[in-house]
Structures are given as C-alpha cells and as structure tokens.
C-alpha cells in the first residue's frame, strides 16, 4: 500500500535541491510542452539523453524514477502494443499469417492462463509479459498443424515501431521530469511554489491561495488515508474478507467493504480539520503572513534560461525541419 506514494521527497544536496520550487515547476511545464512539440524520433531520443544526464548530475537514483513509472506500466505497454499492431503507416516490415487452428488456440489459452497464475511470482513483470506475448505470436505464426479455423494477419509497419518507441520515450520523459520535481522538493516548498506560480490566475478571480491550501492538505493527508485503508483492510480481513483473491463479485465486495468506511472516516476527518483550521483563525481569502520564503538565485535564472532555449529549439525544429 505504502508504495502508492510515489516520488516522495528524499533529502539531498545537489543543484536540483538548491533550485527554487517556482523554477522547478515552471521548468517542468515548459519542458513538457517542448517534449510535446518535438516530432522527430532522433530529437526525442536526444531529449531522453539530456534528462538522463540531468539525473546523473543531480544524483537521483534511477530506481526511484523507475518506481514512479511503475504505476504507468500498463499504459506504457498498452500504447506500445497498440501502436505496433494497428499503425499502418510507413514501410511494411513484417507480414505474417496467424493460424488459428485446433492446436494453436488451446496452446494460446494455456499460455495466457499460465501467465495469469504465475505473474504474481515473477519480479520483472514487464519482461515476463513481453516474453509471453512473443511466445503467443510465435505459436500462432509457426504452428500450422491441425484443422485451421481461421487466419489472421500480423503486419508491422516501420511507422508503427517508430511511434511505439516515440510515445513510450515521451511518457518516460514526462514521468521522469515530474518525479524529479517531487523527489527533490519538500512538500512545503512545493506548496509555496505552486501558490506563487498560480498567482497570475488571480486576474480571473481564481482563489489561488485556496487551491494551494487544498493541494497542501491533500498531500498531507495521503499517507494518513493510506494508513487508514491499511487498518480497515486488516480489520475487514479479521472479519473474514479476503483481499488477495477472489472472483469479480468478491472483488467488488472487498472494495465496497474498504470504501464505505474510508468515506465515513474521511468526512469525519475533514469536518474535524475544518474546525481545527477555523479555530486557529483561518479565514479563506484573508491575508496571512508566511513562515517560509522563497529565494531566487542565479541558478534559477540560468535554469529557466536553458529551458526557454529548449522550448524555442523544439519549436524551430518543428517549423524548419
């Protein structure tokens, strides 16, 4: 349960830590935009290279970034496979016939069942999944024994492969960038940074302080709520609810038995919290002094300069190439 809290702040002392949170947030936005502007595969790869260098200089462990990517694995694999199978632009690279026969269909089903039951014991789930996928493709393309029920086409195009990698790298870059932000910025600073970055929205009468406060409190209560969920799961388990196994119907029951108490507790909590805040003279929208102050240094100016150059470069590459 605990590992849901991805990218928690880890104390450190590199340049990424010395940067003003405002810089990091603005840089993150600019770099994300740049990454979406880039259309060429080579430049996307180049961007990934630059990010890896930043990670190395910033002494951020790749494992942490990987942990941040893990919840998105499904999305990554899905888009990857989707692009490879269904993108029909560019040159035709591979064309194979898929034989659905009395032998291959049961074998395929067998492999999938085997995968479903064994995947939880395997550490490298992604590799395992790819292995299973290739073996299914192998079986379907090479074994044409027995009575053929039907035939299918597996055709892979160059654009499909390129786009598959392109989109994957882009996702990896985006997640890495945001992980860098949350790993190197204290929650307090993150709030302050967000608050002051959002400030221009005040023109549109958006109450930015309130938004920042809401974000701060959500951040603050995520671990507490996770603890709560853990406790409830233990309590329900002691009443005989099994959270690890079960059919869809059981799963629904398990989730209900977790969510209902979670909701009730959360309402009570937010009520208490609102009381505590009001009791300490919090009035939404009233000016407050701040304990933490942000300091802008040369490093910040330089960083923002570099990110702007990155943005302009990607725009001009898009236009002129």
């Amino acid at each position, binding site marked *: 349960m605990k590992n849901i809290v991805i990218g928690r702040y880890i104390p450190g002392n590199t340049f990424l830590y010395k940067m003003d949170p405002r810089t990091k947030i603005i840089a993150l936005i600019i770099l994300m935009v740049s990454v979406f502007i880039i259309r060429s595969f080579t430049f996307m790869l180049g961007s990934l290279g630059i990010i890896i260098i930043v990670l190395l200089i910033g002494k951020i462990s790749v494992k942490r970034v990987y942990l941040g990517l893990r919840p998105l694995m499904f999305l990554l694999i899905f888009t990857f496979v989707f692009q490879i199978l269904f993108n029909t632009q560019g040159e035709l690279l591979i064309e194979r016939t898929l034989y659905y026969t009395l032998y291959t269909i049961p074998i395929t089903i067998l492999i999938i069942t085997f995968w479903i039951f064994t995947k939880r014991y395997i550490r490298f789930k992604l590799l395992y999944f790819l292995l299973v996928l290739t073996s299914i493709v192998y079986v379907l393309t090479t074994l044409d024994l027995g009575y053929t029920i039907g035939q299918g086409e597996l055709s892979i195009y160059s654009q499909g492969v390129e786009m598959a990698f392109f989109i994957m790298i882009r996702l990896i870059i985006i997640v890495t960038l945001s992980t860098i932000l949350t790993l190197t910025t204290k*929650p307090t600073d993150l709030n302050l940074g967000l608050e002051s970055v959002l400030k221009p929205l005040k023109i549109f009468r958006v109450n930015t302080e309130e938004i920042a406060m809401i974000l701060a409190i959500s951040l*603050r209560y995520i671990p*507490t709520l996770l603890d709560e969920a853990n406790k409830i799961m233990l309590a329900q388990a002691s009443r005989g609810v099994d959270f690890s196994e079960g059919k869809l119907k059981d799963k629904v029951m398990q989730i209900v038995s977790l969510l209902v108490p979670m909701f009730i507790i959360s309402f009570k909590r937010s009520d208490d919290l609102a*009381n*505590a805040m009001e009791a300490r*003279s919090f009035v939404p929208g009233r000016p407050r002094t701040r304990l933490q102050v942000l300091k802008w240094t040369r490093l910040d100016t330089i960083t923002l300069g570099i990110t702007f150059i990155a943005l302009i470069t990607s725009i001009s590459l898009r236009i002129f190439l």
Partner: protein
Amino acid sequence: MNSIEIKDVSFQYQSNTPVLQDINLTIKKGEWVTILGHNGSGKSTLSKLIIGLLKAKTGQILVNGIELNPETVQDIRQKVGIVFQNPDNQFVGVTVRDDIAFGLENLQVPREDMVERIEKYAKKVNMSDFLNKEPHALSGGQKQRVAIAGILAMNTDIIIFDEATSMLDPKGRNMVLDTMKQLRSEGKTIITITHTMKEALLSDRIVVLKQGRILKVGNSKDILKDKETLEKSNLEMLLPLRILYDLEQTNYSNERIKNLLWELSLSV
C-alpha cells in the same frame, strides 16, 4: 472581569435529542476550570460553542465581555485557542514547523517573530528535534504535543484543552501540567476537559456535566471529595482521596497523615 459567560445555552445537532441544555456558567479571567463528564456528556460540544464553531439554539455566550455573533466570531477566535481531542485531525501543516506556524500565519504574525515562537514552544513540548518531521512519522502523543505547541504559540487569552494530554506519557503529561500552571501564573484563563483526576485537582473549579446538563459546579477539592456527584457522573474518586474521605467521616485527627494522603492524590 469575566473571560467567558454562558447564559441559558441549549444546543442540539440535526437530530432532535438535546446535547446541551440550560447551561449557565461564568468563568473569570485567570481562572482554571475543569470540565468533567462521562463520554458523550457534551464537553467537546460546549467548547465548540464557545468559539462559534457550532451555534447555540438558545442563549447567549460572551467572551471577554463581547457577545458571540457572526460579526464578532473572528475577533473572539483570536482570543481563544482550542487543542482538540484528536491530534490526527488537527494537523494542518506538512511538517511540524509548518503546523505550529499555521495559526501564527493566520494571525499575521511577522516572520521573525514566528520563527522565534516556533522554537520556543517546540522546546516547551519537547519537540525541537522533530520540527522537520511530517505528521505520519510521528506518534499519537507527539502529534498531541505539536497541537499543544501550535495553540500555545498563538498566545491567546483563553486556552481550552480538550483531552489534550490523553495520549501523553507520564513525563509528557507532567510537562503539560507544568505549562498549564505557568499559563495560570501569567494570568491566562484555562479550561481543561479531562478524565484525569490529577488534572482536575490542579484547577480552581470543576464543572460536572451529565447528559448535557450541569450537574454541579464547585471548588475542585470539594467536588473531588463529593462521592455522590462523582458516582452520578460515572467518575471515580482517587483512592487516597477515598481514604481521606473515609477518615474524615470517622473523625480521624492526624493532620500529617491527612496531608500525606492529599499529597498522594495530587501525585497519582
């Protein structure tokens, strides 16, 4: 001067069962009052009424002579601090430092002043080494200490402690009790809600609530020896006090033993 005047106050939540009925209570400036009562007797509700988190159905509440109403509620909240019962649900900041600062930021205390006060009160509750810690890394008692520091730092005239020491170890509790004594000597008005007789004994006056009504108000020492009242409100008399009480019934006259028993009940 009176810190708090509660006149004919009644209250109920949405349901129709009255939670507080005909409460009349005056607390003088500099007084230390304990509210005793069984679970659900309305103690926490009463404290929420005093700072206008809940609105009384009937009656009137005055704080420092100012009547509580929607116009004055913000001013009154700046005069009254409450340490709530559940330390988890009143931790607003991302870290201990931020949390102690929260009230000060709302009161628009200047930054330098804030830093100073945070250091001072964190030290007072023995949490100086935890200033950068996040709440989920703290124990219940430690969170309670932070809550106390956060309220003390606001330096309000009136402080309400709603079972604020329930999770503290004996040493921590004594520390808070010493702080309360010091607050009294500074002329602050203190209201403690507690189930601990020792805390009750330190205060000047005890208000006993039973099912939303005031059962009895009186001098702490008298109430704590009042067997009938204590029994009616599900409270237990301290053992040394019980002995003392029984001795007094039998015309026992050894003052030294009596004093020792008294001392003993203070140190439970």
